[in-house]
């Protein structure tokens, strides 16, 4: 069933945003004058001309019937795909977004926007991210999400997807802002992720259903990402990455910009490193982000963190990730089990790690090493080394990279223990 609003008003809103040559700024001016799009339509040629906002060309577009007919079709498509519309005059329209220079007149939404004033942080970065970027995005998004922060990103490949996945992993909330109509999934391989975000968070777009992902849409989409969030974390960005556009928007809109530092030789970290030199906050963990907002955790959050700290002392330190993992506000029980797991690993590192495993671990230390080299270096048969490394991978001690390279899993927090 369609609501009254959908029947009566929505077509006029869709008509207004579908007009070529009429952007959000002009549309807002007109709404300011006529109050609702319906009245704009009803004003007719005469009324519009009198308002003195638009020129002759635009007048022709505004009075053409074709666009109005299409608008009714859009309502049907939205209904079919379960897409809701949030108009700029609606009270649940995100407050932060309404304040930006050219807020979208209509937001198309699949899923649910959180009504409270929860902190939203955008985690964005390159589509061609390296393993480092993927990992950093995942870890930071995970920790932020478990502290109750909403993770906002663009569903693109690479960093964006990793950020969304990180948030979903810990049961957190995440919004994906798309550069195309919501009836299209772009990139197509993220279909499952798209569905999951739509069911647990929200997928958002300012584009009418059926809009294809044209490259010019994405910079526009980026202003919504930054508009929805209180700060933007740029994880990995090349020199000309679109993530830098998001950072620019954030600055214009007066939002905080965070950047994850990277290797100076890595092309994918050129943009982020430059952001830092320009004054963006160096971000090595979620705590760096939360700090900036003087983040006052609610009662549960603090207690969980304290518990985590205690345990950390007992076990001679389990690393930072672990505390943040424990900082989940929503489900303390889950946080408990999570930290328990890491504790396990930590204890194993200390006392139960087999001699061979310890040997392998020391051999890899901070390098990225190929399996053959590890086996030769540790004097093990290739099959024994492979089996041992796999067991270590399962316990989270090491990580396997494509091409049978291995490296120590830093985020496990056992590094300090060994050294």
């Amino acid at each position, binding site marked *: 069933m369609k609501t009254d609003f959908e029947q009566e008003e929505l077509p006029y809103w869709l008509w207004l945003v579908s007009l070529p040559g009429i952007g959000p700024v002009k549309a807002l001016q007109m709404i300011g004058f006529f109050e609702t799009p319906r009245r704009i339509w009803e004003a007719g040629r005469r009324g519009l001309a009198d308002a003195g906002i638009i020129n002759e060309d635009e007048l022709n577009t505004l009075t053409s019937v074709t666009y109005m007919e299409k608008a009714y079709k859009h309502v049907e498509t939205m209904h079919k795909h379960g897409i809701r519309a949030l108009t700029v005059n609606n009270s649940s329209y995100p407050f932060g977004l309404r304040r930006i220079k050219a807020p979208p007149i209509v937001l198309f939404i699949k899923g649910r926007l959180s009504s409270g004033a929860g902190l939203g942080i955008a985690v964005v970065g390159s589509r061609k991210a390296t393993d480092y970027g*993927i990992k950093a995005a995942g870890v930071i998004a995970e920790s932020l999400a478990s502290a109750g922060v909403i993770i906002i990103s663009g569903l693109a490949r690479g960093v964006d997807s990793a950020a969304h996945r990180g948030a979903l992993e810990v049961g957190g909330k995440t919004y994906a802002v798309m550069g195309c109509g919501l009836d299209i999934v772009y990139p197509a391989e993220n279909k499952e992720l798209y569905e999951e975000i739509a069911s647990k968070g929200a997928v958002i777009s300012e584009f009418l259903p059926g809009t294809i992902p044209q490259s010019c849409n994405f910079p526009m989409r980026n202003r919504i990402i930054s508009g929805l969030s209180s700060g933007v974390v740029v994880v990995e960005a090349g020199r000309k990455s679109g993530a830098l556009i998001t950072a620019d928007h954030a600055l214009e809109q007066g939002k905080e910009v965070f950047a994850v530092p990277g290797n100076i030789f890595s092309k994918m970290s050129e943009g982020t490193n430059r952001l830092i030199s320009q004054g963006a906050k160096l971000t090595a963990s979620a705590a760096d982000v939360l700090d900036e907002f003087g983040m006052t955790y609610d009662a549960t959050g603090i207690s969980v963190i304290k518990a985590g700290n205690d345990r950390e002392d007992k076990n001679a330190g389990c690393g930072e990730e672990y505390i943040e993992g424990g900082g989940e506000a929503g489900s303390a029980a889950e946080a408990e089990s999570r930290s328990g797991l890491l504790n396990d690993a930590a204890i194993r590192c200390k006392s139960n790690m087999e001699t061979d495993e310890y040997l392998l671990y020391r051999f890899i230390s901070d390098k990225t090493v190929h399996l*053959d080299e590890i086996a030769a270096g540790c004097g093990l048969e*290739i099959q024994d080394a492979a089996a041992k490394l796999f067991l270590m991978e399962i316990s989270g001690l090491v990580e396997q990279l494509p091409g049978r390279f291995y490296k120590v899993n830093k985020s496990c927090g056992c590094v300090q223990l060994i050294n």
Partner: protein
Amino acid sequence: MLSRIISCGLHGIDGYIVEVESYISGGLPDFDIVGLADAAVRESKERVRAAIKNSGFEFARRRITVNLAPANMRKEGSIYDLSIALAILAATGQVSLPATAGMVFLGELSLDGGIRKIDGALSMALCAKSTGQRGILLPAQNSGEAAVVKGIDVYGAASLIEVIDFLNGDLCLEPCAGICDFDMLQKDNDAAGSPKPDFSDVKGQNGVKRALEIAASGSHNCLMIGPPGSGKSMLAGRLPGILPDMTFEEALEVTKIYSISGLLPSNIPLITQRPFRSPHHSVTQAGLIGGGKYPKPGEISLAHNGVLFLDEVTEYGGSLLETLRQPLEEGKVHIARLNATLTFPASVTLICAANPCRCGNRFEKNKKCTCTPGQLRDYMNRLSGPLLDRIDIHIEAASVVYDDLSGQGMAESSAVIRKRVNRARKIQTLRYYGTGIYSNSQLTPSMLDKYCRPCLKGEKLLKRAFDKLGLSARAYGRILKVSRTIADMDDCEEIQAAHIAEAIQYRTLDRRAI
């Protein structure tokens, strides 16, 4: 004026008895061959006429009708020349007809009366034996091959005169001695063949070598992914040296296929080494799985009981790779043609090699991969899911580091590895005796429970690995089969956790990708 000589034809890789009847009657001199004979058979008229005359016999100037029975099967090739000549000579009383009873005659005639080599002698000798014939007479070059069949007298002849003298009792031909000892022959063949490239030539790449050893031990299909120059083709080329020995039955099957394809060298009566075929990626569908007007075995059948190596597997046409799916599953190829449906055996170990991406630098430590995510996806998508389903081992090869190349350390030789492979294969042969399979790769889902039960620790590990690495369900059976082989190589009846751990390492493509 009527005579009947027995000969043999080929249907797929099996022979069937063909009766060559000849009837000579009065009337205008004429020579007709009936019984669905193709062009090569019809042309035999001229060869037969010339051969008979040039051997000093008389070619009847009467009306000659030759019928090839069964008349509803298509006959092709030149193998009936000899029997047609004998049928005509017998009908004119120049050859003793009773002497030909119970004998199968095969051979192509040359114009001067010599007998030329034919294809498929082994299949036809087997057919002669199974239909209870007394003996088989065929070109001298084919006699060694046919003599592999025991329980039937095999005579080799070089010319038509020899055959006629033999039948008329003027010449005494001794039956060919078959091979007495299969193992001896195997050793002789090993020694006689040109020296094979050895595994010790490849420096480094111990991980890949290990994976290939597992593939050889359990006959597992294997996909090698690595940058150019990492030695994929070099390693695959050395695989024949470590493949396990063939049994006599396997050797017979392989020889039959090579024999009907005309690829059997005349000095080797029986192929005792597992075949290794590596068709170029421009191969056609008919070339790969078999086909043609008179269907011939394709590369996959020529690799039967051995290895089919597809280098640069992503370059093969998509539909070409898909045609491999059914043969890989069944171990047989069915080729349907208008006049018949043939089945060729095609039980192969498939070894594929591919670059990790379009630019080839994906696993390189010091080079940058320039592929976009879209290109990467498209590249890997060239291998379809169903095909990957049939591959047990994924192995990623990295570039060889300089230290390995220049290192003085001697790598293991093929002979040493092969000994281990043979031992592991023997365990499997004994275990699966009477179940209709002979290697771990052939285990059916229902057999997994019986033969691939991991120990408690292994089971737990497997479960954890699935949760942690997001392995797909299809990986489950593959991991168990490969771990079964690894356990066999360790001479372990129960699959241990370490075996499972290693096996999971060979499922890299199943891991959840971001």
